């Protein structure tokens, strides 16, 4: 198992190096001139040239790329063109906010699992049909739309929750988390419900479920231990992917709720052509996504002993 994790970690480093190379190359090919971004349109050719030289922008591509990677290893993501503040500090300030929101969103999305189980158990009933239509709708509508509708209802009319911002202190923070968490979690909840339902329906038709029934086991035990545990593998994949995506910062939700997270930082950086910040964000997100993927793979082993055995045997391959 530890060998498997070690191998996966090594692969992760390669993936991240690849990501940096691709993003760095794309940024380099873009028509953005960092000197002009910093100095503005009114700068003269001489000052621009001077700054380019100062920043080492005249060096060949590979020299700049390796310099960036070397600095990155030291934890230095460079300094923002926009406000001269270290990129690592800026990301560090916002990342906990995004992780908090993403975690709450994923927690909320877990309500999809019991809903999925309940609908699978009553397949083709009115409850099943109505729930599936609702989840289809919930999965299809864009997050910012939910956000705005919820703000209209719960902030503007009922005045239950603040409409934007991140509260300070436990109570205010919890109150300010409710609407954005539901907003980013609701699509995940719908997807979880649909995945759980189809996965459960598949498992329900397995022979070992019939065996369990024949043994006279309690229905609840059959559902929770025999069906759900086996049906959870695809659900964990979906939840994990969703968590990875949400960690990337849900730009629209963060914008609608003025949440000071990484998503908004990426967009602001792109808008202001702040290349070090964009690069820093992409690298951070690539690392986060890789870690979440690795954690999901490890989680499989705990849910399904068969996968654990496989990990032990091969050390590299995994069963999805």
């Amino acid at each position: 198992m530890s060998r498997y994790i070690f191998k996966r970690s090594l692969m992760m480093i390669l993936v991240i190096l690849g990501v940096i190379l691709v993003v760095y190359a794309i940024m380099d090919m873009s028509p953005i001139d960092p000197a002009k971004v910093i100095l503005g349109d009114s700068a003269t050719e001489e000052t621009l040239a001077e700054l380019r030289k100062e920043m080492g922008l005249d060096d060949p591509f590979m020299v700049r790329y390796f310099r960036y990677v070397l600095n990155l290893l030291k934890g230095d993501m460079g300094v923002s063109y926009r406000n001269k503040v270290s990129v690592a500090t800026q990301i560090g300030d916002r990342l906990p906010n995004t992780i908090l929101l993403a975690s709450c969103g994923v927690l909320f999305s877990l309500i999809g699992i019991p809903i999925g189980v309940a609908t699978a158990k009553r397949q083709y009933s009115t409850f099943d049909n109505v729930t599936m239509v609702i989840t289809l709708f919930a999965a299809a509508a864009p997050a910012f739309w939910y956000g705005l509708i919820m703000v209209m209802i719960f902030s503007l009319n009922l005045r239950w929750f603040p409409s934007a911002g991140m509260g300070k202190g436990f109570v205010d923070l919890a109150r300010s988390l409710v609407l954005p968490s539901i907003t980013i979690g609701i699509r995940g909840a719908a997807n979880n419900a649909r995945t759980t339902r189809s996965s459960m329906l598949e498992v329900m038709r397995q022979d070992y479920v019939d065996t369990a029934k024949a043994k006279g086991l309690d229905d609840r035990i059959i559902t929770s231990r025999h069906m759900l545990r086996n049906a959870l593998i695809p659900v964990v994949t979906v939840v994990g992917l969703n968590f990875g995506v949400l960690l990337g910062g849900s730009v629209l939700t963060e914008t609608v709720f003025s949440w000071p997270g990484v998503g908004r930082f990426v967009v602001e950086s792109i808008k202001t052509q702040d290349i070090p910040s964009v690069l820093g964000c992409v690298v951070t997100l690539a690392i986060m996504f890789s870690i979440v993927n690795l954690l999901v793979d490890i989680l499989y082993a705990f849910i399904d002993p068969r996968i654990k055995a496989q990990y032990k045997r091969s050390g590299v391959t995994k069963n999805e």
Partner: protein
Amino acid sequence: MKKMLCFFLSLLLMLSVIGTTTAQDRKTKDTIVFAQSADATSLDPHAIVNIRSFGVYSNIYEGLVALDADGKVVPALATEWEQIDDKSFRFTLRDDVFFHNGEKLTSEDVKFSFERMVNSKIVSTYVSFLESVEVVDELNFIMHMKIPYSQLMITLTIPCCTIVSKKAVEESGEAFGRNPVGTGPYKFVEWSESESITLTANENYWGEKAKTQNLVMRVVPEGSQRSIMLETGEIDVGYDIRANDAKRMLDEPNLTLLHEVGQRFSVVYYKANSVGPIGNPAVRRALEYAIDKDELMEAVVYGFGQSGSLYCTPNTNGYNAEKDIVEFNPEKAKQLLSEAGYPDGFKLGLYTQEGQVYVEIAQILQSQLYDIGIEADIVTLENNTLNQKVYDGEEIEMRISFYNNLAGDLDFAITKLATDAYGTTYFNEEVDKLREKARAAFDDAERAAIYDKFLDLMASDKPWLTLYYEQNLVGLSNNVDGFVMSPIGAHQYKNVVVYE
């Protein structure tokens, strides 16, 4: 019956008296919260010139002089000044000004600040006229200029030309933008990235102290969200209200919408040195009549603007209402076009950057140009790519943009049209001469006459096509009192109170 009426009338009178006394004694809040669409970039006035930043730091720093509500230059940190000759001014500082770190303001700080501006790659363009600052004594100094520069006083009111504490800058270095120290009515407390900036009243302020203890700027990127937060009372003042929310806000009984023309206007830059038809001033003059600017302004900003034709807005020094002629006359446009040699019209590229407002303007222009026989091909490009193409001298016949005149003086627009302006396509040495003359004209009337000459020259050459002057839209809760709009968005909170 009469008795009853008397009783009710007296009761009503009593209640109204009670009503007024409570209004007078209304409690005020200790914090004003205002929201803007993006976070400040830096609170170092010499490091950044953008509205989101000086919207905050205008309350932390002060200049030597300031603008009053009527746009007149009044003393601030300098009590008096006199012109020694064409190129030098002598200033006297107030004797009772202390920075937020407790240091006394002296001529050394002023010298240091202006040298910092000259050396700042971003701000230097605003003080390019400055030769040096000569310290006479602790409170007196002389500003020496490279050229006679009559717009000196108005330039000194720009938010980035404010005075910083020499000691604080030397202590903080690069981090000064996060640890600002000025002399203003508010001092810096805390900055939560992308979230809020908190300031508190400066108890040692030399003038009348801030009426509200705390000032908080909250970052709320979504326009409709700022309107909602005004309604829920989460914020007291909301900047950059979107035009489509503004109409609704006018009907909202608890909110006030302030809308006044600022110093930003929507403009189309021509490639004035084009070898094609657009390089011909007669064609550019014809286009002035082809555009229904009122309709365009109504469609794009829902009427929150003013159609115009000059290169500065009505509250800029140098504006002349008599010369601001807007006439929509497609027949005349067609006639002028055929006189210029294009009776059947022609084709051209209409370039714009991405963004809803830009694209809407492009589409309306396209349809209106089509009516006089000009086929405009809309090309939407990323802003930098577009700018690069302009600087590379590519054939960008018409380019939609906005021009913001921070200084409030026509001189800055003239500079952008001078032959030495970066990326310009209009080369007329007459503009350079007029700029030089206006700068040397210390008499207001004389300078106004020169500016009029410039406007006449522009009316005949038309290197730009002005569409409309934009209004600044600020939403206020009705509990807010004392808020005065700044045309460039550098709103001051010293005299603002919010009632409970």
